[in-house]
């Protein structure tokens, strides 16, 4: 009974902790919000431009977020010329909105994300094929080495035969004269 209570108390503690963000996280979040408000022009451009990354993060089932990272990195590369252009030209809200209203900008930004997706798809396929080949070769090597060992040391080396303390099959250990 006492144990059950303890477990319940622990669970309650864990539940409380789950909803609460550590102070460092809170600090980063507040700083992020303040920065995004301070640089609202860039924030708008990034939020719109990086929508494919957000979608990728939602559908990413790798558990490690690798798909989102791959797409996100290329998506950011696609957004970068417009961001730099915005910063170099006075960082005006109008200019940001104008950029976003130009389909070319959207195409370039989203093309980056598409390239990221292609990189992810092609490399994972290539690596998978390479790994299968590598492991198949390793399996062949193992089988070859096992054959070599059997040829040199006999069936006794396989562990399929019961051996005496000197490593010989028990039924062959003795022979009467």
């Amino acid at each position, binding site marked *: 009974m006492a144990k059950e209570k303890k477990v319940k108390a622990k669970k309650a503690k864990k539940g409380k902790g789950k909803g609460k963000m550590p102070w460092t996280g809170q600090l980063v979040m507040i700083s992020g919000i303040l920065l995004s408000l301070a640089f609202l022009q860039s924030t708008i451009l990034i939020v719109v431009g990086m929508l494919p990354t957000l979608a990728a993060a939602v559908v990413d089932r790798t558990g490690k977020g690798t798909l989102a990272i791959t797409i996100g*990195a290329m998506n950011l*590369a696609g957004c*970068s010329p417009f961001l730099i252009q915005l910063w170099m030209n006075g960082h005006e809200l109008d200019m940001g909105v104008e950029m976003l209203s130009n389909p070319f900008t959207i195409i370039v930004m989203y093309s980056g994300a598409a390239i990221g997706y292609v990189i992810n798809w092609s490399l994972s396929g290539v690596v998978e094929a390479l790994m299968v080949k590598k492991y198949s070769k390793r399996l062949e090597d*193992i089988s070859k080495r*096992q054959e070599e060992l059997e040829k040199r040391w006999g069936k006794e080396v396989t562990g399929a035969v019961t051996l005496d303390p*000197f490593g010989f099959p028990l039924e062959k250990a003795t022979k009467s004269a």
Partner: protein
Amino acid sequence: MEKRFEDALSMANAQGRGAGYWDRVMSYIAMVMYPQSPVRYKGMKFCADGFSFVMANAFVNKADPQPFRDIIFYQFLSKWFDIQKDSVTDLTHILKRVGDAKKAVNQNNMGYGLERALYVVSPDVPCLSEALDSYYITNPETLMYALENISKQPDRPELIIDRHIAAFLSVRDSKSIDSFLVELNSRDYFKRILANLRILSTIQRRAGLGEFPGLTTWLADIMGPVYDRYHDRSMREKVQKSVEKVKGGGDLGLLAKAIDDDAVWKSDLGEFKQAIEEYKRLKKEALSVQDKLKHPDRFGKEDGQEIAAVVSGVISGIIILAFAFIFMLK
């Protein structure tokens, strides 16, 4: 008379009433009734100083040696000597030999038993091994020459040292055989073969004898089970080749060195154990790889996506830096 009779009975009773009790009683009664008469037992009659000849004769004629076991084990001669009233010839040396033989008669191992008792009791008797029927062997040296002759005969036995030769050598030249008696009596056939080789090579070395090509060939021909004691098949072939090289030479020491090198035995066993471990490890690894190959998407895709993330990160970094550089130049 009555007292003597009782003495005879008490002597027999003191040795238990097991098998041969009545034969012993009869023998003791004959002794006490007529002390000057020879020892009588199971139809045999002999004087104490003739016992060794009677025993040797029984072996030569392949008679049942069991009564001699009883005579030695129950010390008939000692009892006969004790009841002599008149002084008889000095028989202490015979009694001592029979006393020494008593230790051997109840052991069945090679080098012991009645064969040993025979050579202990009869110091002049030659080796009575069946294989040496046509020879008169009185010492280890002549034994070696006889064996060399036998080696060339087609009907030679498989193993060289039999019960008689072992007992004969153990009594006459204990240094050449006693340290190998355990191997000679081993249940493992290969150990017995090696014991034969070691004993004969010891005699050859100690006596400084010449070469025995027939004997080395004989021994080399029966080495099959010894080769099988090497785990390493290539080592078996190597040792077999070394033996083939020296077998015609007649030097038993060289033959022993070729097949019975302690360092080689040890390294063979050590490497065999390592091979077992390696095989086990490979088996385990093969199972794990087979499991992975059943689901290539699990490991191949994950690795590929990780690599893609890194590649994409690097390319993105280069692109961003390039754009920054271009805008800076403008």
